[in-house]
Structure formats: structure tokens, C-alpha cells
């Protein structure tokens, strides 16, 4: 009932013009003062739309993201790996649920958002349009994909919109656990047989570039960034986050004895790199620089031409269709129960 109450079809007017300038100024003051905006507070329509889009895309990504990993649950090589992978995929379903709930506070129902996913209207993270071909992909996804997601998501714990920020606190805790889990899979493979190590290297070769792309287009090309930054939805630019990710990634790959598939990768020393005590301050530390990213691949995957775009959506559509009779039965049963209760 709650969601239906919120999904009033004539509620969100695209009426930028009628918004009260005073309310808008007060809203921005609150954001600037790092206050949290709550569901019942006044907010600009564009803020509401931006957040609804971002949070629901995030939820969709969790739901679609269950599929590539679900692909290996039945083939996990030990019972411990099977249990932890199943628990991880279950966490992702949980993240999807919190995030849909957070997005619902902005006025759109979960059903409407989910329909947008199934119809192809709504986007989800392109990374899940790549296939999981070996067990090592479970390691690489945890280490790289969850690692990249954490870089993106930690700043969202301070997002100006309260329900999203609070959901992200829990999501991030679980994600960092998932990342360690993935890295641990990689460690086991890299300490294993030559075949296992080759499997780990192959997974890294396939996931490295798509993970760098996860942060989105270079800063100059990103369409949503400026306004989101003013609204304190976004705290760091795409390139800044990509840089943090890469700087963390390089020593991790080195520890595993794996090679990043990036011939252009190089270290650019900072002013403080001559200091040997390791106590360098920000700004003086050097950075790892990646080679050129193939943005055409990114655009192709975004446009629906990734290796698994069609499979991922059709899997979700099929599940939804196959489950229709179950949902109908549950609704019919609930209606009967309610009727009996009224009669009693």
C-alpha cells in the first residue's frame, strides 16, 4: 500500500518554472551545510529525478549483478566457496531491496522501476554485460568489480539524500567484505597450480579494462556531474575515482604476481616520492597512469551490444514471466484472507 500511495501518476510535474526560488535557495543552503535531505522535505524536481534515476539504476545493477555470479554458484569448487558465493549473491539481492526502498521514498514504486529495467528503459552497470567464463572470474569480480564499486560508493555514504546515504553505509560494509572474499580467491589461485594461475591472469586480462570503464566517461564528457556535485550527490569526479582505484590496484596485482594487461601503464612520481619514510602527504604522492581506454567499447556495451546484454535482460524477463502465476496466487490468497477477516 505504501508504494502504491507514493506512485501517484500525476504527482511529479516537470514544472521547473513553478518552483519557488526561495525554497530552492533554502534547499541549496541546507545541502551546502551538509544537512541530510529527507523524504518529506522539499526538494527540486530535478534533484528528485536525478536521485530516482541514480538509485534505481544502482538497484538494477545489484539485481542484474546477481546473474554473472549466480552462474558459478552451482559449480563452486569447495563447499566453503559455494556457501560464501551464495551468501554474496544473496547480499546483492538485499542491496537491491534496500536501494529500491530508498528510491521509493522519492515517489516511484518498485514495480514501476522494475518494469523500466525489464523494458530496457532503465540502465544498469555495463560491467554485468560481460560473461563469467571460469571460476577465476568470481575472484576477479570480487576484487576488481566490487573494488571499483566501493570507490564509487564510499563517498555516497555522505550523499545529501538521507535514505540513500544510510542505505549505502550498510551496502559498503558488505561490499568491502565481498572485495576481500574475491581477492582471497585470487590469492588461492595465484598460489596454486600453473593452470590456476593462468586462469587468474586470464580473468584479470578480461576484467581490467571494463572495470576502469565502470567509473564512467572522462570528466570532460560526463553529462550529469556538475549539478550532482552541487547537490552533493557526487563528491569526486569520474577520473578522480578511477585514479584512486588504479593506485590501489597496481600493488595488489603485484602482490599476486599478475600482470595488468595495460602496456601503457606507468608511474608518474610526485614531489614527495623521494621521501623514503612512507609518511607522504596527499598531493605529493605519485600516481599510476593507465594507457588509453577504448571508449568505443564502453559506448557499444552501453548501447546494448555487450557480450551478454540480451542474455541478462532476457533472463530477468523470463524469471518475471515464469513467476507471474506465483505473484497472482499470492495476491489472490491475500485478497481472500482480507475478505474473510472483514466478514468475521
Amino acid at each position, binding site marked *: 500500500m505504501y508504494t502504491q500511495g507514493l506512485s501517484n501518476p500525476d504527482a511529479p510535474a516537470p514544472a521547473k518554472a513553478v518552483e519557488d526560488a526561495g525554497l530552492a535557495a533554502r534547499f541549496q543552503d541546507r545541502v551546502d551545510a551538509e544537512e541530510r535531505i529527507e523524504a518529506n522535505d522539499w526538494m527540486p524536481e530535478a534533484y528528485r529525478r536525478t536521485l530516482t534515476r541514480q538509485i534505481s539504476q544502482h538497484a538494477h545493477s545489484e539485481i542484474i549483478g546477481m546473474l554473472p555470479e549466480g552462474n558459478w554458484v552451482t559449480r563452486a569448487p569447495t*563447499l566453503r566457496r559455494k556457501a560464501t558465493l551464495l551468501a554474496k549473491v544473496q547480499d546483492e539481492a538485499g542491496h537491491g531491496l534496500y536501494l529500491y526502498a530508498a528510491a521509493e521514498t522519492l515517489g516511484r514504486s518498485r514495480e514501476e522501476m522494475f518494469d523500466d529495467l525489464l523494458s530496457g528503459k532503465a540502465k544498469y552497470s555495463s560491467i554485468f554485460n560481460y560473461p563469467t567464463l571460469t571460476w577465476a572470474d568470481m575472484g576477479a569480480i570480487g576484487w576488481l568489480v566490487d573494488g571499483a564499486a566501493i570507490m564509487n560508493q564510499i563517498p555516497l555514504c555522505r550523499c545529501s539524500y538521507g535514505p540513500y546515504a544510510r542505505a549505502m553505509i550498510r551496502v559498503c560494509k558488505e561490499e568491502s567484505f565481498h572485495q576481500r572474499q574475491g581477492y582471497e580467491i585470487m590469492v588461492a589461485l595465484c598460489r596454486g597450480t600453473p593452470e590456476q594461475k593462468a586462469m587468474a591472469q586470464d580473468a584479470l586480462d578480461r576484467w581490467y579494462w571494463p572495470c576502469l570503464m565502470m567509473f564512467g566517461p572522462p570528466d570532460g564528457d560526463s553529462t550529469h556531474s556538475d549539478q550532482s556535485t552541487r547537490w552533493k550527490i557526487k563528491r569526486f569526479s569520474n577520473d578522480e575515482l578511477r585514479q584512486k582505484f588504479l593506485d590501489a590496484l597496481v600493488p595488489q596485482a603485484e602482490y599476486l604476481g599478475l600482470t595488468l594487461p595495460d602496456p601503457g601503464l606507468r608511474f608518474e612520481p610526485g614531489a614527495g616520492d623521494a621521501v623514503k619514510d612512507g609518511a607522504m602527504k596527499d598531493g605529493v604522492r605519485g600516481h599510476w597512469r593507465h594507457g588509453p581506454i577504448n571508449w568505443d567499447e564502453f559506448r557499444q556495451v552501453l548501447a546494448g551490444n555487450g557480450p551478454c546484454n540480451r542474455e541478462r535482460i532476457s533472463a530477468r524477463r523470463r524469471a518475471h514471466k515464469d513467476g507471474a502465476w506465483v505473484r497472482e496466487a499470492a495476491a489472490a490468497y491475500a485478497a481472500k484472507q482480507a475478505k474473510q477477516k472483514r466478514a468475521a
Partner: protein
Amino acid sequence: MATTSIQVNETPLVLYLLRRADDALILGHRLSEWIGLGPILEEEMALGNIGLDLIGQARSLYAYAAEAEAAGNDEDKFAYLRDAPQYRNLLLAEQPNGDFGQTMVRQLFYSAFADLYWRAMTESHDATLAAIAAKSEKESAYHLRHSSEWVIRLGDGTEESHARVQEAVDLLWPYTGEMFECDATERTLVDGRTIIDPATLRDAWDHTINAVLSRATLTRPKNPWMQGGGRAGRHSEHLGHLLSTMQHVQRTYPGAAW
């Protein structure tokens, strides 16, 4: 040469533990096949949860079997390096998921038994088994509640859901008798009060199932014929396929550590 299959010294206790562990693992594996296919997100989580509980129960039981056998086997060797005839699970556990209704009926039949079974087993004179039972009993009670609620909802839902779930009840009914079997091997453990005789739970199970079927407006099948063989390693055609998926990585890279 790395091992690709193991031999198990099936003392009565080891055989018993493998049987119960295999029930939990195979059913847990079946539930894990639901990932990404559930009718609603909450149910994907619930099926995953029940699957995780069962895999956890299997691991405790395998660990105890390894300790009791003391022959260098462990949970993963039991799970990944035995072929279908060495598996000792109930035929019910290996039956395919079918539609959501079929999965819930299978769960109801099993959980209505497991709930009673593990509760009774908390009285085992074997302290390890009593401890495993105490944990499993709590989990099974939840599994029973969840699957009963769904069978009732589906049975008393729409015409279509009623027909589907009745078909599932009829299909799976012949696999319920095996749960109550107690062969000569297990009899020795019953006599030592290590385990209970599952036949003693029959009336209570009937009572639970009759109550759920009645609320669900479903009919209890009349045919008394029951299938068996799982406890002795004679399975349905389905188990081999399940194992070929589950054991694929271990068998492709023998002896590797994961």
C-alpha cells in the same frame, strides 16, 4: 597422481552421517539453482537463505563423518569426489526444482520431517550430533514455516496455482516414504541411542502435512506406493547431472586447492 575419487569406510556412524549430510547438500544445491530465477526478489533471498542453512548443516555433518572415519577424507572430498552411487541422499532431495510450487512442496515435505527429526535428535547420546541437531532444528523450523505458508498460498490462491501445486504434491508424494526408513545399519545406532528411529516421527509428520494440505485446499494422494533406493546409492536419473555440474571444477583440475 591426484585423487579423482575416494573410497569411504562406511562404518554405521559414517554411513549415517553421509546420508544426512548428502540430504542437506543436495537439497541445498537444488535451492542454489534458483539464483536469478525467483518469482520475486524476496523469494530469491529466502531460497538462498534456506540453501545456505542446508549447506551449513551438510558441512557440519561431513566434518563429523571425516572425524569419525579418520581416513584423511574431508568435507570437500565427500562432496566432490564421490560419484552418484556413493551418494546416500533421499531421492526427494535430488528431484528437480520444477516450478516454484514444486520447489516449495519438496521443501515442505522435507522440512516437515527435518523439523521433527532434528528436534528429536537433540536428545542424542552423541554430544556432537546433539549439537548439530540443536542448530539444525532452529533452521528447519523456519524452513517449515516458510514452505507451509507458500504451499497454503499457492493451493488456495488461483485456479492455476492450485492445479500446479496439486500436481507437485502428486509428483513428489512417492518420495516421502524413504524419510522414515531405518535399515539394519541405522538400527544399531538406534539401539545405542546415537540416533532416533525416524519411523517414530511418521504420525507427527502426517499430522503436519494433513493440516497444511487441508488449509491449502489440496488433496493428499491415495497411492501408498513409495520409491526408495537413495540410502543405498540407487538414485534417480537426476543426481548424475547435478553432480556433473557441482563437481565440474574439482574433477577438471584434480588435486588443486581452491
